């Protein structure tokens, strides 16, 4: 260690790591959600509380099914990256790693479950 300069030792230790990629990812998904969220709210909204047959018939239609599938996938990927920033701000060490991994698992599981359910109704 004595042979490494301070500059060399500091390289890569910044909090951001691949921060610009993360930032650009959030920008892209937020713009996508800006379009998807209103479409999703006004298609899924009237279905919440509706009877089973009506909900089932509604989600065999392409538009509501595709909007719901896209919103859940893009939304949960946006959540995955967003919650990572929250975790990184308030925790460190092993707790931070465990929470980030747990939230990645939750996000992919939720997105996959949503896709599976919508596909099973729609197809």
């Amino acid at each position, binding site marked *: *260690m004595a042979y490494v300069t*301070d500059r060399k*030792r*500091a390289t890569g*230790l910044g909090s951001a790591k691949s921060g610009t990629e993360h930032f650009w990812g959030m*920008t892209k998904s*937020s*713009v996508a*959600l*800006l379009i998807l*969220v209103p479409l999703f*709210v*006004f298609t*899924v*909204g*009237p279905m*919440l*509380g509706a009877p*089973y047959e009506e*909900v*089932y018939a509604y*989600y065999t239609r392409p538009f509501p099914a595709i909007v*719901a599938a896209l919103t*859940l996938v893009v*939304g*949960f990927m946006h*959540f995955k990256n*967003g*919650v990572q920033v*929250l975790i990184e*701000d*308030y*925790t*460190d*060490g092993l707790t931070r790693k465990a929470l980030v991994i747990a939230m990645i698992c*939750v996000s992919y599981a*939720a997105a996959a*479950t*949503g896709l*599976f*359910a*919508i596909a*099973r*109704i729609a197809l």
Partner: protein
Amino acid sequence: MADVNPDDRPLSPHLTIYRPQMTSISSIFTRITGNALLIAGLLIVWWFLAASTSPEYFDLANSVITSWFGDLVMVLSLWALWYHTLAGVRHLIWDTGRGLDVDTAEKMGWAAFGGSAVLTIITVLVI
């Protein structure tokens, strides 16, 4: 000497050391609403799963989502979704280098709170 142990470095200072201002409150609400939307997101996924499984399972998910508590969660989440959306637009504007002065930032903060309340009421009335 540079700090060689990443685990000992300080975390960013937050809530406890600043006087609340429109800029800080609108920012922390962006974080709270965004992360709290996990609850509604998982409920909606469960509702879709139930609808794809059987009428009986759907009735269970439907009764949870339409109970008074489910309604409360859904209406609060709807506000959270609109607030987070408007606050996100604010960030997209800031990212272009515009509106970064305190006066404009505070106005956009009020717009996000006011706008999200209006959008929530409109949405509840429409659907």
